[in-house]
């Protein structure tokens, strides 16, 4: 469960909008259990994508963002991955312009 829900949600939307990205890596456990996960807010189910992890060790260090994506076959994997990294960088720069970041993007599938 993420400790930074607002940033996680913003990054999730941002990455999902990247051309060439089919979706964030769905954990199979999430797929099985998604219906059981209620956010408690208006009864809305909150997906917790296995493909996005946001952390900030110590609370003051660099933001550590780990993204795992499945790309679309119609676009070169490298380009989609690079665009994903840029989208995450832009999102973080807008929210935390002075904070250091450490971003990892991994492709776990092509569809």
């Amino acid at each position, binding site marked *: 469960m993420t400790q930074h829900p607002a940033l996680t949600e913003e990054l999730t939307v941002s990455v999902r909008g990247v051309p060439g990205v089919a979706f964030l890596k769905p954990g199979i456990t999430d797929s099985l259990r998604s219906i059981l996960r209620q956010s408690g807010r208006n009864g809305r189910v909150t997906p917790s994508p296995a493909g996005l992890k946001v952390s900030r060790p110590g609370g003051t260090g660099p933001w550590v963002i780990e993204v795992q994506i499945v790309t679309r076959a119609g676009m070169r*994997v490298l*380009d989609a991955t*690079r665009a994903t990294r840029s989208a995450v960088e832009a999102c973080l720069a807008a929210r935390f312009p002075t904070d250091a970041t450490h971003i990892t993007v991994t*492709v776990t599938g092509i569809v």
Partner: protein
Amino acid sequence: MTTRIHPPDPTPPHEPDEEQLPCGRLLSQVWADWEEGVTDTHLPDCLHCRQAVEELDQLESAVRHLRDDVQENITVDAASLTERVMDVVRLELRPGRPLPLGEPDENMWIMESVAARTLRAAAEQVPGVRAGSCRIPPEAAHSSRLTVALDIHVPLAATDLQYLAEEVRHRVRQAAEELLGVDLVGIDIRITDLVDEPDTSAKGHGR
């Protein structure tokens, strides 16, 4: 910059994504034990483990039901569907090794199994060729220089194996550059069998 600053650990004790049940056991291990018939005194008494096993049963039932529906209603390769579902499950639990993508300081990766699938499919575009094992070890730790080691089966009737291997090498290099965006420094093709007739039944799996 020539070194990566934070490569994913290729051999973590368990995948960070792996779910640990409240009782302390890994979900993947609970599932594996159940499938292999391993029993102990913990499972019957643990609510979390029993729920996990029930969910796996539900998934298997759903797949079986879907397969039965397909068999009854339309002519789709049900075995292939099951195989693809199990591929997803296997990849989830054992994703393999990450390979570097792009420049070292970009910290981008692609799982070896994903890249290998694309390269196998490219090799199988050469008529009569079936791809087998495909390994892509980096030349050195954290290096972006990749070499592919690909095993193939070719038709017994092929008259020029060198030419055939070059054709496969060309397709693989093209796919690596145009589909993945990876520059390969070497493509080692090993012909492991000559087959009487091209087996088209398994072609296109790209696995």
